[in-house]
């Protein structure tokens, strides 16, 4: 009895995931960067920008950074800082939406596939393999061909790309968890499969999925930026980091700030989500820490 209460005491002393995340240098830095981006995105959402992001000031075209325009203006005289803030809103909106869709769908597919097993599992995984055979950007382009361009269609295109990844990540742990005795026990007392999956299997397989969510957010930011850079994602004049970088092409020689700031925004954003993902992995799967 005393041994049991000791172990319960130890468990109670175990610091929370957030506290452990803040203790790891990379995790804490990632969290700070992500929090900063989310704050900026909210500012953009509330339209708190120095100027309206699409407002043109024709007389002030291609101005360098100054006290009037903190990060300068583009070829239409639009304020770069305002466009970066609104761009963060759009880019993060796309990233969060497509990760929400792909993680939900992927987890459902992967979990169902592993839990049901047999031929169903085999067929589902072969279908996922087919999606894996396409380079991410090509698959996204194929979806854009079918659906057309625009913000919401970009979300669907990227979600299609990442759903198979989540399915695969979710499937592995479910395969081992479903063989555990407590699952057999739950089934023996007559619990319905759906209840077993949602209350006993899924909560015990969440750790790798949480890590994957953070990493998928960084990939989604990159894919969105790539699609928008190619002119097939978010459509101008609506700003996104990829759109802004694409607009800087050809004039970056005379106005390098048009390339530098959106570039930095992408890099720092991706870095933030990557660091957060790494930090989460250290906290949730300590075996990985030594190897990074």
């Amino acid at each position, binding site marked *: 009895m005393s041994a049991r209460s000791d172990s319960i005491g130890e468990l109670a002393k175990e610091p929370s995931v957030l506290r452990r995340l803040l203790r790891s240098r990379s995790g804490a830095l990632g969290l700070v960067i992500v929090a900063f981006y989310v704050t900026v995105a909210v500012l953009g959402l509330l339209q708190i920008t120095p100027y309206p992001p699409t407002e043109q000031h024709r007389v002030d075209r291609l101005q360098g950074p100054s006290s009037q325009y903190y990060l300068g203006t583009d070829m239409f005289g639009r304020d770069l800082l305002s466009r970066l803030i609104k761009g963060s809103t759009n880019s993060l909106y796309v990233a969060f939406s497509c990760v929400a869709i792909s993680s939900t769908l992927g987890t459902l597919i992967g979990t169902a596939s592993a839990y049901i097993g047999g031929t169903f599992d085999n067929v589902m995984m*072969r*279908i996922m*393999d*087919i*999606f894996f*055979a*396409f*380079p991410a*950007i*090509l698959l996204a*382009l*194929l979806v*854009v*061909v*079918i659906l057309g361009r625009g913000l919401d269609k970009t979300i669907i295109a990227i979600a299609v790309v990442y759903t198979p990844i989540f399915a695969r990540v979710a499937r592995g742990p479910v395969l081992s968890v479903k063989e555990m005795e407590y699952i057999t026990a739950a089934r023996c007392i007559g619990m319905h499969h759906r209840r077993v999956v949602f209350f006993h299997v899924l909560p015990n397989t969440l750790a790798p999925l949480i890590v994957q969510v953070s990493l998928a957010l*960084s990939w989604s930011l*990159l894919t969105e*930026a*790539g699609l928008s*850079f*190619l*002119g*097939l994602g978010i459509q101008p004049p609506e700003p996104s980091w990829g759109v802004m*970088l694409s607009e*800087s*092409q050809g004039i*970056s*020689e005379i106005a*390098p700030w048009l*390339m530098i700031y959106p*570039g930095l925004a*992408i*890099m*720092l954003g*991706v*870095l933030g989500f*990557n*660091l957060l993902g790494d930090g989460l992995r250290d906290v949730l799967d300590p075996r990985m820490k*030594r*190897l*990074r």
Partner: protein
Amino acid sequence: MFRYLAQRLVAVIPTLIGISLLVFVAIRLVPGDAITTMLGTEAGMLTEKQRASLEAYFGLDKPMVEQYFSWIGRVLQGDMGYSVRHGKPVLTLILERFPVTFELAMLSLVIALAIGISIGTLSAVRHNSMIDLFGRLFALTGLAAPNFLIGTLLIYVLSVYFGILPNAGDYTDFTENPLKNLKQIIFPALTLGFSFSASVMRTTRSAMLEVLGQDYIRTARGKGLRPRAVIFGHAVRNALIPIVTLAGVELGYLLGGAVIVEKIFALPGIGRLTLNAISQRDYALIQGATLFIAFNFVVINMLVDLLYAAIDPRISYVSKK
């Protein structure tokens, strides 16, 4: 080994069929009828009779399943359709552009492996030193910087500081003028190579750290082998497996055409061909190119699987019956 090869070949067939089905269905999901999508605005000038005869010619009046089988039958005979926009067969176009993509992919891979494996190994051997810190920062930056940003920056630096315009167009074939060709392809290859080297570095570092902690490394050191012999003779070779996997996956992607980098540097490869086909709504070409890229990807992954045996003596494909 041959038995394993045969098994792997059989195993990829369902995936290949699945890919062809997906591409076939995807193109048919595009809104609008096939003749209009094929001919664009010119379809408006067709009479009813002309449209019907075109539909019969392309087999569009037949049921969907029959259309699929007749399409895949033609693909297997090397007929991937005809690009109305280019006025050439799709396969000819793909084969014309593939050498550019192939050269770019190979050169990028060599650059990425050279940078990634050296920094990764150094970082692992000098674990927790300044070199390691530099290596990790390099990997973090490389992973966070998209290749189109690196490409754009490279073009900026080259044009502003060195007066070179690497994206000036007029591509020259390697066989025509190797030096001019290399001058054109080196910058996009550096862009892709640098971009990819970050993940190679990370994988090398973690694989090396794992290997360096093994008992046989301690034994090798204990028996007085020089550090260089331990690292290159024992550690690196065993750390190669995850690097080969990564390189295989990346090569598959690269052979699919680095869409964005080919566009930035105006290289006439598969990626740019596909991208142009998408903006010109050239569906026969989109269908053919996508199918080609995905098939490539599957075949390369299979070859990578076979490469494992050559690298890791512990892996044997002999049946254990």
